[in-house]
């Protein structure tokens, strides 16, 4: 219970903390939550469910090993976000600390809720803090881009709300297990529509190809911490929803109906994002499109509903969080110190700031999913799954390797290599260094021993469903 409520409590306290110690408070709060979840996981029997009930009608919690993985991921991400921004101005604002912690609460709720309406509530609950963070601390010159982000997510989530209402009406159930047990297939085409509603929400959030246009602009204009939160953990909500809720519940004709459309969109996204990223001049925009490319792969692979692929996709989800924190941190560091992210204004930073150059390179290679990193395991098995499903999809999906090299290396070497164009560049602060180190170690550890996640998650993903 404290696992879920802790961030809420901290988030409320954070409003009353004076601004000058808010960054320390944020760091402590996130450390405590992380530590708490680590302790909790050590007592957690992965094959069991941890039930938490506050006596609410529509919101109940049940934590399984997948949920726990996501909880750990969430807490780690928030810890890293606070740590990595320790030296930036944003954490001096108690508003940020408080909102971030509230958002953490929303995410934890989402990952642990056991009711479908609870899923929706937490889904939207996360939107509120991130919206305020983006608005207050972002560089949105026009409200348009920010509103576009909201429009898209809202359209998606309202479609999901309709689907949830329909689902609850049809099955007369609301908990996860009961919904799993319900015979959705007997509703025929209705179930296809219902799943479509969910998929629309997820497609916006992941994002899948034609629904991604909010992403690049939002990422670019958002404060670094906000971008990290968005891409490292918020997008994962959709994948989690797909993995845990939608695919198992709608197993059957609805999934069969949507499988190839979604895979197609995912594939289009993979190539589309990568191709666009090649020519981007803004670092964050480039990473945003890269993210589109990477997540399209996970989404497409998830639709295959292959047991092993599902397990591996969790690894890939974690990996993507690692990568996006790292890359956006790098972009943020550049932006913060030089005030620009335009590639043509940058050059030769590695010379001035060798430590930064080194760690950025490591993260670049992690995102290129070279072997020894979690990304490799992830991409290898996901593409393999797509390849087994259809040769052509596999071949198309594997182009991400080549195109990824094209844009990632550009993103790395244009600012870091070449003649030095900048005057001074303060090398990494210890907090940033720590984040980079943690991320790299995690990526390499998972690259060599992905089994630690897959075994744990397998308890909740390989249970016989119907």
């Amino acid at each position: 219970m404290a696992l879920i409520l802790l961030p809420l409590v901290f988030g409320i306290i954070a409003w009353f903390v004076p601004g000058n110690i808010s960054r320390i408070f944020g760091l402590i709060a996130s450390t405590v939550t992380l530590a708490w979840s680590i302790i909790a996981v050590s007592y957690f029997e992965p094959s069991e469910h941890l039930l938490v009930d506050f006596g609410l009608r529509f919101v109940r919690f049940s934590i399984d090993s997948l949920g726990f993985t996501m909880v750990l991921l969430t807490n780690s991400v928030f810890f890293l976000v606070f740590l990595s921004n320790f030296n930036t101005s944003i954490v001096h604002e108690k508003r940020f600390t408080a909102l971030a912690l509230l958002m953490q609460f929303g995410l934890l709720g989402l990952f642990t809720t056991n009711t479908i309406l609870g899923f929706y509530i937490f889904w939207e609950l996360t939107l509120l803090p991130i919206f305020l963070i983006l608005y207050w601390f972002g560089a949105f010159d026009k409200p348009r881009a920010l509103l576009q982000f909201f429009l898209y997510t809202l359209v998606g989530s309202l479609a999901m709300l309709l689907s949830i209402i329909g689902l609850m009406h049809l099955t007369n159930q609301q908990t996860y297990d009961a919904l799993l047990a319900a015979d959705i297939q007997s509703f025929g085409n209705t179930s296809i529509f219902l799943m479509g509603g969910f998929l629309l929400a997820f497609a916006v959030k992941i994002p899948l190809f034609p629904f991604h246009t909010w992403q690049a602009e939002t990422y670019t204009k958002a404060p670094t911490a906000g971008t990290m939160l968005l891409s490292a953990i918020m997008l994962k909500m959709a994948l989690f929803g797909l993995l845990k809720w939608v695919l198992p519940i709608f197993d059957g004709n609805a999934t069969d109906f949507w499988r190839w459309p979604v895979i197609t969109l995912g594939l289009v996204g993979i190539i589309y994002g990568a191709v666009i990223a090649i020519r981007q001049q803004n670092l964050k925009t480039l990473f945003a499109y890269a993210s589109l490319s990477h997540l399209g792969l996970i989404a497409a692979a998830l639709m295959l509903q292959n047991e092993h692929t599902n397990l591996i996709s969790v690894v890939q989800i974690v990996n993507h969080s690692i990568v996006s924190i790292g890359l956006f941190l790098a972009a943020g560091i550049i932006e913060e110190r030089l005030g620009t992210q335009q590639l043509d204004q940058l050059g030769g930073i590695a010379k001035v700031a060798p430590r930064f150059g080194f760690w950025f390179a490591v993260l670049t290679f992690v995102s290129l999913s070279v072997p020894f990193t979690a990304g490799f395991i992830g991409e290898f098995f996901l593409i393999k799954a797509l390849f087994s499903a259809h040769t052509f999809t596999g071949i198309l999906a594997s182009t991400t390797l080549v195109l990824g090299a094209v844009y990632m290396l550009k993103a790395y070497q244009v600012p870091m290599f070449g003649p030095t164009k900048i005057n001074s560049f303060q090398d990494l602060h210890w907090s940033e260094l720590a984040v980079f180190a943690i991320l790299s170690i995690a990526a390499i550890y998972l690259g060599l021993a992905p089994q630690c996640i897959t075994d744990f998650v397998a308890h909740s993903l390989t249970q016989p469903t119907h």
Partner: protein
Amino acid sequence: MAKDLTLLLLLALPLLGFAVNGLFGKRLPKIIVGSLATGLVFTAFLLATSLFSGLHGTQIVHLFNIIDFDQLQINASFQIDALSVWMTLIITGIGSLIHLFSMGYMSHDEGYHKFFTYLNLFIFSMLLLVLGSNYFVLFFGWEGVGMCSYLLISFHYNDAQKGLANSLAGRKAFIMNRIGDVGLLLALFMLLGQFNTLEFLKIGAAVQQNTALQGGAMFFITLSLFIAATGKSAQIPLFTWLPDAMAGPTPVSALIHAATMVTAGIYLTVRSNFLFELAPFTKDIMLYVGLATTLFAAFMALRQNDIKKVLAYSTVSQLGLMFVALGFGAYTVALFHVTTHAFFKALLFLGSGSVIHGMHEEQDIRKMGGLAKLMPVTHFTFLIGTMAISGIPLLSGFFSKDEIMAQALHHNTFVYVVLVLAVTMTAIYMFRLYFLTFHGAFRGGEALKSKVHESGLSMTLPLILLAVLSIFGGLLNLPGLFFKGAAHWFDHYLSHSTFGLSEVHNVHLDFNTSIGLMLFASAVAIGVMIWAYLNYAKKGALAKEDAALSGWERLSAQKLYIDEIYHAVFVRPLLAFSDFIGKVVDIQMLRNGIYALADGILYSANLTRKWQTGFLSSYLFWMIFGLITFIAYYILKLSVWH
């Protein structure tokens, strides 16, 4: 020491060097950094020799499981057999020499520790590549060396004159390699789909048990493997990165882009021989691709003026030669050439490195000349290298090339004729290079001439050792003409414990043909040497300026315009496509579409608010209108229902 421990130690040593130099290198004195890296690789070499001496049969060393699902198991495990140990010997042996060389060559470089860090990482990756007992671990190494290659090519990323050029060359290499990697990846998927394992031995066993596998599946698998090989081993169509990769420091060119990494494709093919044997069509493709590569690369090398570029095209050409051998199914022959090529090409590159070092980073042979007196050791060793690669009799290159020619003559006369042409060109450009560099008058100006100096011991020692190896390397696999007992030692060595190779037998020509072949080859090589001597050393012919070139010379100097063609056919359309979808589709159509929708709503807001006129009469009118609508709705509904 137990073999598995030896092996793990062998792997761990370069990794240790990488870690130590990476973490503390900046604070350690250069000498310690360099000797640590070199020493570790050399120790690894010693361990490799111990493995070599104690080698019998194939042994698997299992480390841990990477993925362990019920049906699917992927292990981090290693395989000790003749092939892997031999490759290990080359890598660590040549590697330690080049490390030694680098200690001198890089001594003035700021990134000294970084260089050795990367170099050790490369050695580690390369060892993974060759030692892995399955394709997965192989892939680890495969991509790892690609990554190191990138880092090392773009090592001098901060160069003020060349700007981003170095790192762009690195990126080109990485991307081209990645294309090949995709091939390997697809092959892996197909293998997993077909055999549900990636272990060499298990796949081999499955192949042997089930002979019905011949056919489509095998063709696609091997084709994908070959695509991977073309990427890494710089074959047509993915060869253009290798000449550009010369942007890296010269020891890197020697180690990665001549001796070891680029031969990974050959290694892969040899390792997968049992698969290739089932796919004759792929072998044919391989043969002709190799043939074309060797010919065109040799042609392109003819009029290059950058000392390293000549060597780079030469490498491409030699690699093509190896693929020709592989195309004939002569795996050991190819590997033999890999070995000798490693010796003499490393020698040549290091020699050129020594020249460049002595010339203070000048690489253009038009500015050299007469270096023989200024740099005697370099000159002498370089000459040996040149002779070895040109096929001057009794040097290592002579034997290895001769084997390939023999295969060609036996299988396909056309191929043989083309090969002769290529080999002749090889001799021509090599001697052109040699004479222009070391003979004639110094063309670099007096100021530079006074500064030119012979390199130090750490650089010349590797040169000498490699020269020795280049001379005697041929002894490893003597043709069975005279010393029958010592002949074909290498073939036997490889076949006896490498899976699949024992079943493959090379053709051996009869005595007369062999002698004839050898004599012909010797005549060609020596003839070219004499011609070159007369032309360049005596007549003093010089390399022409670019503007003066015409006809075939221009084509050669411009590398057949392949880069330009690639740029026009692939790069430009991709960029244009990227711009198109990035700016037109994404921004203008999709995003502005959303904005247009929003604007439409905004605009309609302008209309709807006009409805609220402010006049009470109109409000009352609309209320009555609403009432009328209600009643009309009723009347309509009634008439529809009845």
